[in-house]
């Protein structure tokens, strides 16, 4: 596993997999605490059921002391019950009884508009679920006293009881006081509120007095203007539909608001009774079982519930809030219609953009931190309307995704050949797929957050995902495949377009390790997903950064992500080509990708709640226009028009003028002999094109006459010095960006590839083929006649074996001249010679072909001396080629005869090593009783798929390359 995979897995396991389902109880003490906690909840619930407005709170955690008592004791008093001499039989809205100071109570009464009535035409919304934005102001009251709130005694040591990790107080370094959540220090700033009406729990409707009071949750986030210090307060409480009033309070282990405390804070008896009954129903549907005399549900009130309640009480300021929602100028029927349409749309003629927004104002007070916050006004739109707008935007996004998929597929259809793909920049598509991939992730998260819009979100996520991870990645893999070879070149040499075997480059260029498609695609996939996940995490993280940092990040990221044409401009320069993408793709993609930016930055009231920033949009548009402009200029004036000619190294010239010297020195793989000399005489040289086997007439440059340019365009010289017809080579390069001659594999020399090339060429001329490796495996090691006959039979060619052979030899002989030794072969042979180890060559090729194949490699093959047995050797009986052992035994005989001449002892077949590449040869070697070193072609290896080991068993090894052979292992 490579490093990317590992990091990817670590990230995956850390973030994606869920944690343990619930906190387990680890000690007897914790179990005891849980029991006490359950008892405590049950007692508090009883207290709630028996409470009346005119009686005091009683033994309710967090409400045992009134503000007056705390004021009298200057805060130096603990929550105790019963307090000696306290009047528990009465209650009034003043600080004698309430936990709130009179100052706050009076302000609350003011906020609630209790002294005003409502008119016929102004009513309150029944459904107020919404997100609101506004400001806040902190009153710097120093006169208010903190009300001491303590945990019940049995919970005080909840944290310390874990026996495994005893807490060690660090003496010399007094711990910094922990951050107090809700301790708002800013004097003013912005507030964001999320108001939700809870009417069902797990699909069950619990509210019996729905038109009077509703259970609400209110999350208030306050922060300074730049959002450096964010505080979130989660509270729950009641919304009184008839008056538009809201009261909520936080809940924790030291502040049991919902068990009677908050109900008293509703200021009058009617509200008290309604909210009390609602709370009882709410509690029964989540914690207590009504059928079993309100027994507490042990599954719900488990240890993790305890710890969550406990955590909320640690370092938290508790809050009580009072809000009032402004009445709207709508009749009750209209409000009902609106709510009904939002819940269950049937197309009522309601213009949702015109219905009044929700306005809310109020205050918030913390008894234990003595903080008073005023909210002069917050405004928001009903969540359902917001969802409708979001839905429209997401649907529009789906249309854009379809458009992008369509454009990309069409472009991929246009760039389907290696030469067209090689012009396309990897990073252009990579940037696009990064954006689309992160969009898929964001959509996926969106589908989890917006339950109502699950369907459109999940469809968008799916589309974005297939766009990014199927189409775009596929394209990236194709591009990597095609551009793989060149990436091992230095950029400089690509830029200068030097020849591959330029002597200056020799040291730099190294043969790339063999890599196949699956390796490349897995590398592309891992790299892509790794980047994607990191990027998405940064993106999600950035949402929580302070405003100014966020704005900077947004600018930088958007400019970066919108630079997708820039790599293409660079690519054009490197490749010197000027038509990469189709123009409709460039313009279409730019527009499709610019529309969302336009919506977010130009529309003031966009659904993403993003501030208007026309400047940034103009900047991005300008930046894209510059990039497209560059592409346009490149296509008109050439890819490198902006670079001064003097700086510009020449691109490789495929149409050089050839001189007589070039031909004579044999630089171009041309055999120089009398015949060719004669050809040269009249200023022309004739040679065969290895692709069409037709004659190339090359006009030689003698330095005197000016060569006709058009004439020179007829042939092409590759950087590896092979000459072809321009037309032939271009046609070939459309399918494979390699020289047809020298992308040449076999054991010692790479004749196998030349065989394939030639056989395929012949097959394709009869509309047959291609030659697949399963067939090849059969043919390997057979003699020429056998191969010809089999080929004709297998593919049903309309020619005789003889004709096949002739065509084959004609074509192959051209290619064979450029056969190279395989890695390790030369070293091995020289090593054997040096060490004086007897060795011989046994090949199924006929003597003729053998000579042709190895003619240019004489110095190596001469080392074999006389010990060469070819397929047509008279010593081998007819029909006894590989896989029969005869050929090897003959070769061994040849060696032994020399040894016996020198008076040395003969070698037994079991003492020999046979090096083989073909399966039939391996069988032959094994049959001869030798130890076989099998070096199969990597394609064969893939095909055998692990079966190969059965063939050699214990009497042989399998190597990937001859270089892997260690003579020391065999005592050589």
């Amino acid at each position: 596993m490579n490093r990317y995979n590992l990091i990817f897995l670590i990230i995956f396991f850390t973030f994606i997999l869920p944690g343990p389902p619930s906190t387990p109880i680890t000690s007897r003490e914790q179990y005891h605490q849980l029991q006490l906690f359950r008892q405590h909840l049950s007692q508090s619930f009883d207290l709630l059921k028996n409470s009346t407005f005119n009686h005091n709170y009683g033994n309710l955690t967090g409400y045992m002391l009134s503000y007056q008592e705390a004021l009298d004791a200057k805060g130096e008093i603990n929550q105790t019950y019963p307090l000696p001499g306290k009047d528990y039989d009465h209650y009034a809205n003043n600080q004698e009884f309430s936990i709130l100071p009179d100052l706050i109570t009076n302000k609350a009464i003011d906020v609630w508009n209790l002294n005003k009535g409502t008119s016929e035409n102004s009513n309150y919304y029944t459904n107020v679920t919404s997100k609101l934005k506004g400001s806040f102001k902190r009153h710097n009251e120093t006169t208010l006293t903190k009300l001491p709130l303590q945990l019940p005694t049995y919970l005080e040591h909840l944290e310390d009881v874990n026996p495994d990790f005893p807490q060690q107080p660090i003496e010399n370094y007094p711990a910094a006081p922990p951050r107090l959540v809700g301790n708002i220090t800013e004097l003013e700033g912005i507030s964001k509120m999320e108001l939700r009406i809870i009417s069902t729990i797990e699909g069950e409707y619990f509210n019996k007095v729905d038109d009077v009071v509703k259970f609400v949750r209110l999350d208030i986030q306050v922060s300074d203007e730049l959002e450096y210090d964010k505080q979130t307060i989660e509270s729950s409480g009641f919304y009184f539909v008839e008056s538009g009033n809201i009261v909520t309070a936080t809940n924790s282990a030291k502040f049991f608001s919902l068990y009677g405390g908050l109900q008293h804070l509703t200021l009058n008896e009617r509200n008290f009774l309604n909210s009390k009954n609602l709370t009882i129903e709410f509690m029964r549907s989540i914690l207590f079982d009504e059928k079993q005399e309100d027994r507490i549900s042990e599954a719900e009130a488990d240890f993790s519930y305890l710890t969550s309640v406990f955590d909320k009480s640690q370092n938290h300021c508790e809050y009580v809030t009072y809000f009032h929602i402004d009445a709207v100028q709508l009749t009750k029927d209209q409000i009902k219609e609106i709510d009904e349409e939002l819940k269950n749309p049937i197309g009522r003629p309601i213009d949702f953009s015109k219905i009044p927004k929700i306005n809310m104002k109020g205050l918030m007070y913390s008894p234990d931190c003595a903080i008073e916050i005023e909210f002069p006004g917050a405004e928001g739109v009903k969540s359902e309307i917001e969802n409708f707008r979001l839905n429209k935007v997401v649907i529009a996004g789906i249309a854009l995704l379809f458009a992008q998929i369509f454009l990309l597929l069409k472009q991929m259809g246009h760039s389907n050949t290696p030469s067209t793909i090689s012009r396309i920049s990897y990073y252009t598509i990579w940037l696009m797929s990064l954006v689309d991939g992160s969009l898929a992730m964001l959509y996926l998260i969106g589908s989890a957050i917006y339950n109502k819009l699950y369907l459109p979100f999940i469809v968008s996520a799916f589309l974005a995902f297939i766009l990014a991870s199927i189409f775009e990645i596929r394209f990236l893999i194709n591009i990597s495949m095609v551009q793989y070879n060149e990436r091992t070149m230095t950029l400089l040499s690509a830029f200068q377009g030097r020849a591959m075997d330029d002597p200056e480059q020799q040291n730099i260029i190294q043969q790339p390790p063999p890599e196949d498609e699956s390796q490349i695609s897995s590398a592309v996939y891992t790299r892509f997903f790794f980047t994607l996940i990191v990027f998405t995490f940064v993106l999600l993280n950035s949402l929580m950064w302070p405003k100014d940092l966020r704005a900077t990040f947004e600018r930088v990221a958007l400019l970066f992500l919108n630079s997708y044409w820039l790599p293409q401009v660079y690519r054009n320069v490197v490749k010197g080509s000027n038509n990469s993408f189709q123009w409709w793709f460039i313009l279409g993609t730019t527009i499709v990708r610019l529309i969302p930016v336009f919506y977010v930055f130009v529309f003031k009231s966009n659904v993403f709640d993003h501030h208007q920033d026309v400047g940034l949009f103009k900047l991005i548009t300008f930046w894209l226009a510059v990039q497209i402009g560059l592409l346009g200029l490149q296509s008109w004036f050439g890819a490198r028009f902006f670079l001064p000619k003097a700086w510009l190294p020449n691109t490789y010239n495929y149409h050089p003028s050839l001189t007589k010297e070039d031909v004579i020195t044999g630089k171009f793989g041309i055999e120089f002999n009398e015949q060719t000399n004669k050809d040269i005489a009249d200023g022309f040289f004739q040679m065969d094109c290895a692709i069409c086997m037709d004659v190339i007439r090359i006009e030689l440059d003698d330095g005197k006459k000016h060569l006709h340019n058009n004439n020179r365009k007829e042939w092409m010289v590759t950087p590896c010095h092979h000459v072809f017809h321009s037309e032939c080579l271009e046609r070939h390069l459309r399918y494979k960006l390699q020289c047809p001659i020298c992308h040449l594999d076999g054991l010692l020399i790479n004749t196998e590839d030349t065989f394939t090339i030639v056989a395929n060429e012949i097959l394709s001329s009869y509309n047959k083929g291609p030659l697949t490796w399963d067939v090849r495996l059969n043919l390997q090691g057979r003699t020429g006649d056998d191969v010809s006959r089999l080929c004709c039979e297998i593919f049903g060619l309309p020619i005789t074996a003889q004709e096949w052979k002739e065509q084959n030899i004609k074509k192959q002989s051209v290619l064979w001249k450029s056969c190279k030794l395989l890695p390790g072969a030369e070293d091995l042979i020289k090593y054997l010679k040096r060490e004086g180890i007897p060795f011989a060559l046994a090949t199924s090729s006929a003597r003729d072909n053998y000579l042709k194949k190895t003619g240019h490699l004489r110095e190596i093959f001469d080392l074999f001396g006389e010990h060469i047995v070819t397929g047509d050797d008279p010593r081998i009986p007819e029909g006894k080629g590989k896989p029969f052992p005869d050929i090897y035994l003959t070769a061994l005989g040849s060696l032994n005869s020399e040894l016996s001449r020198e008076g040395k002892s003969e070698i037994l077949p079991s003492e020999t090593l046979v090096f083989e590449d073909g399966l039939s040869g391996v069988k032959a070697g094994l049959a001869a009783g030798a130890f076989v070193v099998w070096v199969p072609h990597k394609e064969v290896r893939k095909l055998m798929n692990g079966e190969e080991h059965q063939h050699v068993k214990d009497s042989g090894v399998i190597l990937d390359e001859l270089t892997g052979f260690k003579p020391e292992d065999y005592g050589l």
Partner: protein
Amino acid sequence: MSIPPSGFRSLPISKILIVLTATIPLISSLASIKYLYYLSLSPFISEYQQYWRILSSQISFINESEVLLAVVLLYQFRAVERFISSYRYLSMITVFWCYNSLLITLLIGTDLYLNRLGLFIPVDKFPSGPFAIITGLYAIYKAYIPVTYTFDIYHTENYKITLNDQILVNLLTLQLTLSQGWCSIWTGFMGYTVAWLVINGVLPGLKWRIPFYKDLSALLLNKTTSTEGAQTVALSNGAADSTTFANRAVSPNDEDDDRNNIMNRDEDEDPAETRPLASQFLDTFRR
């Protein structure tokens, strides 16, 4: 049942109709705008005055089983398109749609009047989806497409049921018509009646053709008609024969097609050769 050649070769209208029948509900559901296809007197017409619903309610089915049935039926009805040419097929559908919309409008007008008088309203709810058009196409199918074969199902030696190859189409149409209860039944019946009256010349419209169809089809269906045109003619050859034979109303606009057919047939076989009716029918479906 089996009507070779299979697929949509040279049947652009059937193809488009099936694609739309399947995709419009999907897109509507995704965009949650299915409510645009609802139509009932109250509240949409009497309270909200949303008269556009008369047209929109015929656009799309809103539930999956109806979509499925409609797609299967339209696939079967493609034989009609092959029989009467795409041009006539589309024209017929348009004519049916106009008649049905008119009838629904009339019904709603009557309803409103009755409502004002405080009388009983016979038809209040209308189904969502082109029920009337499907049953209209069924009517053409029954009128134009001959039975290919019949088969018997024996209960006992003496008691048997004789069925034909159109049984599936009959049953599916019945099921589609029953799917929304009373309102889809009468709408389906209305569609069938209108189509029957049009086919039999009681109501005008059989000879009406969509104007500019040639231009439009050249614009939209360019590829389908040009590349497959030759095959179309060859394939619809037999169908056209039976059209003329059955003495159906053939408008002058169809002459081009017919001339092609005849020319094509010239190459195929001797025009003088007379084939019995049965073999003509069989040849229609053999090709």
